[in-house]
């Protein structure tokens, strides 16, 4: 193993790690705010990737129809939950958010898709198609369960994962897809050639993290989210709507998932069920990082990425074993250090 190989492996690991870091962040966020362990995160990665790939090929992505369907379902669920205290203004906002928005996205996609308007527009359009699905799902599946235990929320998340996986197969088919990257250029650093796409991935990850930091630190919504994460009841008592916090958290998770998918689809072939294992690695990182700390999760994600690329070089059959077993010494260390067993709930 010479230094060039090491450099390539590290580079690979950092790029993958950046994606895991994004996913880990959104998992931590969703869990802290809503107590949902967001298993369907992987589906958002796959949806983002495949929607972008379809647009890149000049086709109408099937996921637009799913967006419309989910919007209608979310509208129905919200009407059922809120019809007693629905003012005309709130009703208008609800209809705009759940029916008009998907309709507008549908029309825009129909106009733009055949034109192949270039990677940036395609990426934005893919984000617009996939992201709103997350808050819709929250309204349909998780908001009615807001008082349930973590276990029940987890099983509901499994249900959503199963349904989304099946829908992915319906709308995207069993074939994998690849797409044009954001940049065909590459950067030469001595013996190492860094593809432009890798730079995009790392750059966008860092930018997104800084953006999230700013959001949580300096905006009222960000602070409301943090308050909800710390103490749900306390947040409600000072007037923060936990349902709204949940929706924002899910929206962020949706955006991050879809963006991760858009970023990786130029590098690797993505299938409708590829997202799950990527999401699991995000989980591993989130757990290693402590499920509570954002910088911890991001650092752990880089570690997972690098470990993965080295183990696929040395023992590719055992790549997954090594990555997922890496969690155990960390858990052991944590439990020996903390070691307080308290009850669930």
């Amino acid at each position, binding site marked *: 193993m010479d230094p060039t190989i090491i450099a390539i492996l590290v580079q690979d690991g950092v790029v993958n790690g950046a994606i895991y870091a994004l996913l880990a962040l959104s998992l931590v966020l969703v869990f802290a705010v809503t107590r949902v362990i967001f298993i369907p995160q992987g589906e958002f990665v796959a949806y983002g990737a495949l929607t972008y790939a379809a647009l890149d090929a000049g086709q109408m992505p099937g996921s637009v129809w799913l967006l419309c369907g989910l919007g209608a379902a979310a509208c129905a669920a919200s009407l059922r939950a809120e019809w007693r205290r629905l003012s005309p203004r709130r009703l208008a906002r609800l209809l705009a958010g759940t029916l008009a928005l998907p309709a507008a996205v549908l029309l825009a996609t129909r106009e733009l898709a055949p034109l192949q308007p270039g990677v940036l527009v395609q990426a934005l359009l893919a984000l617009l198609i996939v992201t709103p699905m997350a808050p819709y799902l929250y309204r349909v599946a998780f908001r009615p369960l807001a008082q349930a235990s973590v*276990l029940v929320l987890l099983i509901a998340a499994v*249900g959503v994962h199963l349904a989304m996986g099946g829908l992915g197969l319906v709308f995207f088919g069993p074939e994998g897809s690849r797409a044009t990257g954001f940049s065909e250029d590459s950067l030469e650093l001595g013996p190492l050639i860094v593809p432009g796409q890798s730079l995009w991935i790392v750059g966008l990850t860092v930018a997104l993290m800084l953006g999230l930091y700013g959001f949580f630190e300096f905006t009222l919504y960000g602070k409301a989210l943090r308050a909800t994460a710390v103490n749900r009841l306390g947040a409600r008592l000072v007037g923060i709507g936990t349902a709204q916090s949940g929706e924002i958290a899910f929206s962020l998770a949706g955006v991050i998932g879809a963006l991760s998918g858009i970023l990786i689809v130029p590098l690797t072939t993505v299938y409708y069920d590829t997202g799950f294992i990527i999401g699991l690695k995000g989980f*591993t990182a989130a757990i290693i990082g402590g499920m509570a700390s954002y910088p911890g999760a991001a650092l752990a994600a880089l570690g997972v990425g690098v470990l993965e690329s080295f183990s696929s070089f040395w023992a590719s059959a055992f790549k997954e074993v090594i990555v997922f077993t890496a969690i155990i010494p960390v*858990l052991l260390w944590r*439990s020996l250090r903390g070691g307080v*067993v308290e009850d669930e709930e």
Partner: protein
Amino acid sequence: MTWRALWPLAALLLCLGLPWLPGLPSFWVTLGNYIGISSIVAIGLVVLTGVGGITSFGQASFLGFGAYTTAILTVQTGMSPWLTLPAALAVSAVAALLIGAITLRLSGHYLAVGTLAWSVSLYYTFANLDLFGRNDGISGIPPLSLEGLRLIDGRMYFSVIWIGVLLAALATANLLDSRAGRAIRALRGGAQAAASFGVNTPRARTLAFVHAAVLAAFAGWLYAHMQRSVNPTPFGLNAGIEYLLMAVVGGAAHIPGALLGAGLVTVVNNLLQDLLPKLIGTQGNFETIVFGAILVLTLQASPEGIWPHIARVRPRPHRVRPDAAPLAARVMPPRGAPLLSVRGLNRTFGGLVAVNDLCFTLTAGEIAGLIGPNGAGKTTTFNLLTGVDQPGGGSVEFLGHSLVGLRAPAIARLGIARSFQHVRLVPSMSVIENVVIGAHLRGRAGPLRGVLRLDRAEEAQLYAEAARQLVRVGLAAQADRPATSLALGQQRVVEIARALCLDPVLLLLDEPAAGLRHNEKAELAALLRRLRGEGVTILLVEHDMDFVMNLADRLVVMDFGTMLAEGTPETVRRDPAVIEAYLGSVA
């Protein structure tokens, strides 16, 4: 013969006869076999997840340990499948002990995702090692045979599987109704409370984990000899998720719920796979879409699972045998002997000094009151005395033993029992079941004796003791009600009965009179005086000054973590420092 005695017999006849029902399609028999195997795994999850509160995604891996053990042994060494059963169970139990040692100390969602991680890595281990036949697995596994009769036919195997389900359900019901099972159930009321009555909570968690793993391995053994070949797919994460889902949908806290969940999930899955392509006409994973949607809607309609909707689940009345031999009682130290001496006790939380150089003593047979304004450090002192929390410095001597560094169960063993300021009863258990947890250290039966029902004499003794204490505190009529259906004040009294079951030398009561009505307070005071007459020493934290002044022989007053005054109620009442702490200074 009552129905309760007859039902295992009826169930056995059903296991043997049902598959031979004329006109029953063999498709349904096969489905029944799969339901049976899943049921056994889900029954394990009842103990682990529903009762013990430990979520595991990894049960399919233990199924794999069972299946691969018997596959390797029967194919490579030609052992009889009946002989590999103990091996399969043992391998799984050892694996559970190892994995549990690492993961079970984690709490809540850490643990759940921890099980997810090792389940994925075990799957890839099965799929990549030659020993397990890699992705192809192992085929040519011999079938079970009885007296030369090879059990190849699905109908015969149905009986084998469902007798297995019956055994698993019986063993699990017996376990949950035993001393060891109570320790697992007590985890739900708070590990701290359980530990304060001598329950070794890590061991209780491990027991639940091993029990579930052994049941899963049993299911795996049955699976291997039904399929006659094994490969890694049914032991992966998706299968593990599905078992958890079965338990939760059915009602994770109930054994019949596990059977119901396994049945529903298997049947619905099959029906969807069958019906949807006919309805829609195209190929696709439509069944997973519909299945996922049904799952979410079911949970929204009933988050506790389906079983509690079908049967009204409530604690079963417990028949107490008053003739059971009384438990051995402790010899109380002679009245007036020094019992507890606290010197220089310290505890800080960050910058906050909760207990600061606290000194006081207790003598045997007295009622002492620990009073002081809110935040004076009284509850922290209780936690330090009972091993719930560890002091930063100082010494605590109890009957010649140093308590510093001892954990809660060891301190309970020495005869110190307590009640909690915030009531900690197990919500799913009846009053008497909660109280009997207090007698945990006075029994000895382990899980095996519980499963085999060899613990009945001892259990009768423990329950008779609990019933006696309930009579003593005046709650005998409420014995079989769910603990949390009582008024809060009564729940505190249940906590006192639980503490009395320990046969304590020293009783620590944290605000026992809060929430009681006037005449209930008078009864409580009379009870505490009677206990003092029997030689029990009592230290109580109380804010009701009338109650504590009339009852206590001596008061210790705390403020800002230190002792402000000490003496008889009369002297303390006149102490200027005490008056200032409570009412503020005149100036």
